[in-house]
């Protein structure tokens, strides 16, 4: 009984311990929470060693974290030698198969001498986690409770391991994830960095592009402003010759608004129709061959405005240096003004040269300070000095006549000193010995710093010699004129007398023949004699008139019929007038009052006026030499006679001089007639004057008082009769 009770109390104690161990084991997972498998196994193995009197406990984990199998061994302090954990593992793996279920319960001489009871405890449902091996030398091993404890411990370990494994796996996953996140983050960071870099680069490029674009824009605006404000016309065309640009100057010059001509064919717009074809050919040739006659040159051509008027332009064409089909820009300038100015200049130069040549006048300038002398072309000619020669006083002096040289030099020195105007005449002597007279006139101009003489040199040689010749000719002329007028008079008298004489002789001859006939023609003879007497009287008349006209007898006052006196003078001078191709018209008014005066003297005046008129027309060939002589009553009981011609006339201011002795407009003649005529008329209490006609020529008139009561025209006629009968 006692033994039984003792046995019972021991059993109870054992069970109690077993329950405590069980509780400890069951609490293990709480301790393991968050731990790793090795910690699970260590605590488990320590707990098993402590709870059971084991000699050995080992664990082998087949696949803990994908790494090599883990083996942990716990050994009790055994007698004798103590094998290493490694040796034990080796021994275990040699004697045990992989499948723990086939393991034997006893292993002999596992750790030297003696048998060892082993309990394999698979981990996991199929032992896939590994295996725990508990071993003891005791023979009672494992007791029932011990087996239970080991089984629970194995379960707990499996759970713990699973959890740890899961945890580890999770951790691993988390770590992997972290790592991947980190890696990805790093990659992203790198990518980001690269993007940033790329972005920065791109921005740099964009900025540069922007700047360039801005520059380009700015430059375009600048260029547009230049083109728009250019004074020259700027026109651009494409490869087809169509206008692509037309600046304001072009609009203004050609008279087209820009919009109207853009896209139009350039030649149709600004090139005159006559030149279009040529332009087209040139353009086509350039496009075909690349050779251009106008590119890069300044050429002058004719352009046409919108209104069709043509004008000269200067043109410079350049090719626009761009890729693609060629385009051109043309700069055109209206050079009408320039051309006109050039022409004006050329013309005035030509005028000047011609004027200098014709007037034999050259011009010069002389800078006093430097003795710089400039000559016009005519001066070189006048001095017979080569056009290219440098003009110096030394050179000039070689042409001065030796006798005038000192005078010339003296004048130059005085001009240099006084700077007064120069008037000088001297002679030149040419290399061939010919002498020229020149007249120099110069005045000084310019400020005192740069005084300069400007002057003219005229070749007066011809004037000099003609002056000399003229004075000689004058003295000869007066003599010749005297002789000539006598000859003219004689011829005139002869002509007037020969006419009636001719009649007389013819009639006399006829008379003789008629009387000599058989039978004599007495009636015819009588008629011829009658005519002979008449012609004889005519001849006598002429002689007496001439004698009266040219005699120097004292004037006699009588009643004079101016009409009749005029007719007589005309009869005397008609043939001479006709010879001079003068066409005489008479307008002698009827019932003209008689005048008191010397008939012959008045006739002398009339004759003189007729002669003058005839002479004034002697060179007139482009119109009829009409002479009009008229008589008419004048105011204040006067009678007027006038003679009009269509001759060369005279200067209005010369009217007073006309009546001066020796004044004459005639090349020949003495010019004494008019002054004598005037004195005759004045003796008759009348006046004589001259008036230029409204057309060509002059009218000379005299006006004399009518006769006072008492004298009649009958008595005037009677006074003349004796002279006729005298002559007969």
């Amino acid at each position: 009984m006692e033994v039984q009770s003792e046995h019972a109390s021991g059993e109870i104690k054992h069970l109690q311990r077993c329950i405590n161990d069980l509780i400890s084991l069951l609490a293990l997972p709480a301790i393991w929470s968050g731990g790793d498998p090795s910690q699970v196994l260590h605590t488990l193995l320590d707990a098993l060693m402590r709870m059971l009197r084991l000699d050995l406990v080992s664990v082998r984990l087949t696949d803990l974290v994908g790494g090599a199998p883990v083996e942990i061994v716990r050994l009790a302090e055994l007698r004798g030698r103590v094998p290493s954990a490694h040796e034990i593992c080796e021994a275990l793996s040699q004697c045990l198969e992989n499948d723990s279920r086939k393991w034997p319960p006893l292993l002999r001489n596992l750790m030297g001498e003696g048998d060892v009871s082993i309990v394999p405890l698979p981990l996991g449902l199929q032992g896939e986690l590994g295996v725990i091996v508990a071993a003891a030398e005791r023979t009672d091993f494992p007791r029932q409770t011990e087996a239970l404890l080991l089984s629970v411990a194995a379960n707990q370990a499996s759970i713990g391991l699973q959890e740890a494994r899961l945890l580890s796996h999770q951790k691993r996953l988390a770590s992997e994830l972290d790592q991947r996140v980190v890696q990805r983050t790093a990659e992203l960071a790198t990518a980001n960095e690269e993007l940033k870099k790329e972005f920065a680069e791109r921005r740099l490029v964009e900025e540069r592009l922007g700047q360039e674009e801005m520059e380009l824009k700015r430059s375009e605006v600048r260029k547009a402003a230049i083109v728009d404000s250019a004074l020259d016309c700027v026109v651009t065309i494409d490869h087809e010759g169509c206008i692509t640009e037309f600046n304001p100057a072009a609009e203004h010059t050609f008279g087209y608004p820009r919009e109207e001509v853009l896209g139009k064919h350039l030649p149709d717009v600004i090139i005159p129709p006559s030149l279009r074809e040529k332009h087209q050919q040139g353009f086509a040739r350039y496009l075909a061959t690349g050779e251009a006659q106008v590119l890069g040159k300044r050429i002058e051509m004719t352009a046409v405005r919108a209104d069709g008027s043509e004008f000269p332009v200067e043109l410079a064409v350049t090719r626009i240096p761009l890729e693609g089909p060629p385009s051109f820009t043309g700069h055109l300038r209206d050079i009408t003004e320039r051309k006109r100015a050039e022409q004006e200049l050329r013309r005035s130069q030509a005028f000047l040269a011609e004027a200098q040549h014709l007037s034999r006048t050259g011009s010069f300038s002389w800078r006093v300070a430097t003795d710089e002398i400039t000559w016009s072309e005519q001066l070189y000619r006048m001095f017979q000095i080569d056009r290219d020669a440098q003009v110096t006083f030394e050179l000039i002096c070689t042409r001065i006549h030796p006798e005038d040289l000192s005078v010339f030099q003296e004048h130059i020195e005085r001009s240099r000193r006084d700077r007064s105007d120069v008037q000088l005449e001297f002679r030149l002597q040419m290399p061939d010995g010919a002498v020229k007279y020149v007249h120099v006139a110069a005045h000084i101009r310019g400020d005192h710093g740069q005084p300069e003489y400007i002057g003219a040199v005229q070749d007066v040689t011809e004037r000099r010699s003609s002056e000399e010749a003229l004075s000689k000719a004058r003295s000869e002329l007066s003599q010749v004129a005297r002789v000539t007028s006598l000859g003219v008079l004689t011829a005139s008298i002869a002509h007037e007398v020969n006419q009636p004489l001719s009649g007389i002789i013819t009639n006399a001859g006829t008379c003789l023949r008629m009387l000599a006939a058989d039978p004599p023609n007495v009636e015819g003879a009588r008629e011829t004699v009658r005519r002979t007497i008449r012609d004889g009287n005519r001849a006598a008349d002429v002689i007496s008139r001439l004698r009266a006209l040219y005699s120097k007898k004292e004037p006699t006052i009588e009643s004079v019929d101016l009409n009749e006196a005029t007719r007589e003078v005309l009869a005397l001078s008609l043939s001479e007038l006709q010879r001079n191709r003068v066409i005489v018209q008479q307008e002698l008014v009827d019932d003209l009052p008689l005048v008191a005066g010397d008939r012959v003297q008045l006739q002398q005046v009339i004759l003189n006026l007729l002669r003058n008129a005839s002479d004034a027309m002697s060179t007139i060939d482009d119109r009829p030499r009409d002479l009009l002589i008229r008589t008419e009553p004048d105011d204040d009981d006067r009678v007027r006679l006038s003679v009009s011609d269509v001759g060369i006339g005279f200067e209005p201011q010369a009217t007073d001089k006309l009546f001066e002795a020796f004044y004459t407009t005639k090349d020949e003649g003495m010019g004494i007639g008019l002054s004598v005529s005037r004195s005759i008329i004045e003796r008759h209490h009348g006046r004589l004057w001259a008036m230029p006609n409204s057309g060509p020529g002059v009218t000379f008139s005299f006006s004399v008082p009518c006769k006072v009561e008492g004298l009649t025209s009958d008595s005037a006629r009677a006074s003349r009769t004796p002279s006729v009968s005298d002559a007969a």
Partner: protein
Amino acid sequence: MELRQERRAVDRPLVSVVDDDESVRESLPDLLGELGFAARTFSSAEEFLASDCLDQARCLILDIAMPGMSGPDLQRELKLRGQEIPIIFITASTDKSTRPRLLEQGAVECLFKPFSDTALLKAINTAFHRK
């Protein structure tokens, strides 16, 4: 003389006289009649040209200085018209230098007034002879 007088006027050779001086126009026809010629007178060259005498006259007595067309002017005009009438010039001028010039131009004679009837007859005979 008798023979000449018996000839009818229409048979006589016609001599034309052109002179602006009336005394010549009056006196010459009678003399020409006495010399056996028919005569017609004209006071100007223009009058003569307008007449039917151009073809009939066998001789022309022509004054040099006349108003309008002068004697030499008429001579030139006749030459232009192809009328070969022999011309005897007469003139009151004393300028002898005109004579050779006129003869050179084809005139038969140039008589200075006053001239004798024999000189005139000689000239007319020369003119007829030339024809």
